[in-house]
Each structure stands twice: as structure tokens, then as C-alpha cells.
């Protein structure tokens, strides 16, 4: 009970901070939308081509800018705040879960905000809305966990330079599964394998994050 209460309070604090700073809503989401708009400018007004590449481009933008959501400055606990949390007896795993939960909610908002932009610009005519409703939160969870884990590792070695190197390879299965699910839905192919891959990635990242939370937090002091 204490674990979940701590995780909930950490998430609540992170979301409240984000509402005050507007880092995701007023910076990352507009930049993500601009990135989606720039691609048609670069490719040209080839409607069939845009329709084909649209879903893939959407997920690439979600991945690249989603990392910025996970690494937002407003979600970082500085040294004195980490000390306070440690001395309050907050379980580092609860902190990881809370922070990843807040990041997942923000990523979900990010995906939902950019969805209509992608639909308007690329006209991809997606099929299988029921599966897409499953896919979107699963990607948000995966990226939320991955970004939070990467941020925790970066804090433990006091270097954010490593974050892209950590995120890039681990995000490939998530990106691949998301893009292939959309393509499978469009072509009427089975997508169960890709959804399973996403599920496995989400579970692996959750386990890795929870198990490594304590040693990484201690290393960051």
C-alpha cells in the first residue's frame, strides 16, 4: 500500500510541476507538430507517398520528441530533493514507477495531440481503430518506461550524453512494432505478434526499471 501511495504522490507531483512549467504542452507538442508539418514540405505533395509513409513518420516523431518528454527538466529531482526523498524512506522503485507513470500520461497526451495533425497532413485512412486504441497506450508505456530508465541511468553517471545511445537501440523494437501494427492493420495482416512484442518490451522495461532503481539512485548521490 505504501509503495503505491508513494508512486501516486511522485506522479502527482511531476504532473503538477508540468502543468506549472508547460514544458511538454507549450514546447514539445508544438515542436512535434512542426516536425510532422516539415516532412510533407521535404517530400513534396505526393499524396499516395505521404499516405504510405504517414504512420511511420508519426511514430518516428513520437519516438524522438517522446524522449524529450521523458527527459523534461521539470521531471528531474535535483540532489537535495533526492536526499529528501531518500530520507523520507521513499522506495526508489516507487519513485521510478511514479515518474514513469507521469511520463506515460504526458506521452499519451502527446500522442493524442499529434494524432489529428498526422491525420490531417498525411491522410493515412487508418483501419482497426480498436487495435489503435490498444497500441497508443502501449507505446506510451514503453517510451515512458524507457525514457525514465534512461534518465535514471544518466543521473547515476552524471552525464546525459549517454541517453541517446541507450534510448536508440532499445526503442527500435517499440518503433518497429508500432509502425508494423499500423501497416498490418492497413493491409489486413495479423498484428498479434507485434502487439506481443510491445507487451514484452513494456514488461522487460518495467522489471529492469524497478530492479535497478535502488542501485542507480544510490550511485547518483
Amino acid at each position, binding site marked *: 500500500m505504501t509503495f503505491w501511495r508513494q508512486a501516486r504522490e511522485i506522479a502527482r507531483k511531476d504532473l503538477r510541476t508540468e502543468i*506549472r512549467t508547460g514544458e511538454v504542452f507549450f514546447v514539445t507538442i508544438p515542436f512535434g507538430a512542426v516536425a510532422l508539418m516539415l516532412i510533407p514540405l521535404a517530400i513534396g505533395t505526393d499524396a499516395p507517398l505521404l499516405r504510405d509513409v504517414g504512420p511511420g513518420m508519426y511514430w518516428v516523431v513520437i519516438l524522438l520528441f517522446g524522449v524529450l518528454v521523458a527527459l523534461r527538466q521539470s521531471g528531474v529531482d*535535483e540532489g*537535495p*530533493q533526492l536526499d*529528501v*526523498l*531518500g*530520507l523520507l524512506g521513499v522506495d526508489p522503485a516507487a519513485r521510478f514507477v511514479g515518474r514513469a507513470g507521469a511520463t506515460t500520461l504526458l506521452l499519451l497526451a502527446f500522442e493524442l495531440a499529434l494524432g489529428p495533425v498526422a491525420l490531417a497532413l498525411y491522410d493515412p485512412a487508418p483501419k482497426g481503430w480498436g487495435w489503435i486504441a490498444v497500441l497508443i497506450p502501449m507505446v506510451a508505456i514503453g517510451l515512458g518506461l524507457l525514457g525514465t530508465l534512461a534518465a535514471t541511468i544518466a543521473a547515476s553517471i552524471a552525464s546525459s550524453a549517454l541517453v541517446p545511445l541507450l534510448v536508440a537501440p532499445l526503442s527500435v523494437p517499440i518503433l518497429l512494432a508500432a509502425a508494423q501494427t499500423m501497416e498490418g492493420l492497413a493491409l489486413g495482416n495479423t498484428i498479434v505478434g507485434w502487439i506481443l512484442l510491445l507487451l514484452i518490451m513494456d514488461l522487460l522495461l518495467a522489471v529492469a526499471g524497478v530492479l535497478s532503481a535502488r542501485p542507480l539512485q544510490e550511485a547518483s*548521490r
Partner: protein
Amino acid sequence: MTQPLVELQRVGVRMGETPILRGLDLTVSAGEIVGLVGANGSGKTTLLRVIATLLAPTDGRGTILGAPLDGEERFRIRSRIGLIGHTPGLYPNLTLQENTQFVARLVGVPDARVGEVLDRVGLAGARHRRAAQCSHGMQRRAEFARMLLTEPHLVLLDEAHAGLDRHAADLVAYIIAGVRSRGGGAVLVSHEDNRIAPLADRVVELRDGSVAERGPA
């Protein structure tokens, strides 16, 4: 015989090749208030972080509230330690009330207590102000409020008097009286002997990472 709250034996801390603490012995008994003085760079803050179990020593051994410094048990006793460090650990974008409430909810203290402790430290009128918009003294008071909520058994104050008016400085005495009445103890760090001597049972001086002198306050 009651076990000491803090018992450090030949404790040393190195940062790379640089020794910060060297062969340091220190004991804080139950109900005892120890003052720790020393020049800048003498190792006071490092020693306080070792006592708070936030920094593992590279040499020596010891126990804090009965838990060995290098064991897993230190994670369990951390919630009984209260530390106010150099830099306030408040979240700048949360109000003073939200910062205090955050701590209250994490430790399972009813929300009603938040208003009481903010009132006690003289922040009732500023409770809706964000921490970033508050002076250093007000942030310190908010940290005292959090300490009143958690009622730690071992209180560690690092330059807690710095930048405080007289009323806020009285809060330090109030907190120390509280921890003493609970059978706990405190370590007060300052580079000014005269600020902590009236509060401490004895004063220890640190010089170049070692205890140079000790005696009654």
C-alpha cells in the same frame, strides 16, 4: 546500556585521490546535541552526509541508529533521520503548502497537520506562494515545517541558522527540544561556533577532515 545514535570509528572518505575525512571517530548518544564546527572545506558537510547514510565512507566503520553504515539496513532507518542541508530540497514550482503536503502524504501524515506545521513556522500567510518565489529564510522555514511533520529521531542541520531572522532561529531551538524529548539526538553544523554552542551539549571541531578538538559547549 543504550546504543549510541551515531557511532563512527576511523571513518574516512575519499573523493578520487583526495581525502575529505580521515580516521574520524564520533559518537552521539541518545538525547545528546553535538555541535560540529570547522572552516570551509574541513569536511563538515561530508561528515553530515555520512551520518545521514547518504554517502558511504571509503574507510572505517560505524552504525547510525543501530544500522551498520555499509549494510542494507541503513535504507530502513533513513526515514528516522531528518536533514536540512545547504540547499533547500523544495520543489520550486510547487507552493509551500504543496511541498509540505507532498511530504505529509509520502509518510502517511494526515493533511490537517500540514496547516498546523506551516502555521507553527510562521508561513500560514505564504502557503500558496511557490517555493521559487520565496526568500531563503522562508524556504528554510518550510523545511523546518517538513521536519516537524516527520519528527525524526536524529536531526542533522547544516548551517541551519544561515540567513535566518531571530524568530526562525528560535525554530531551530524548538526542533532540537522536540528531538531531545523524543530521546533522539542532533548534530548541528556551522562555521560559527557562537551560533551552535548555546544549543549543543558539546562542540567538536573538524580540521582537514579529522577531529581536532572536542569539549563541552
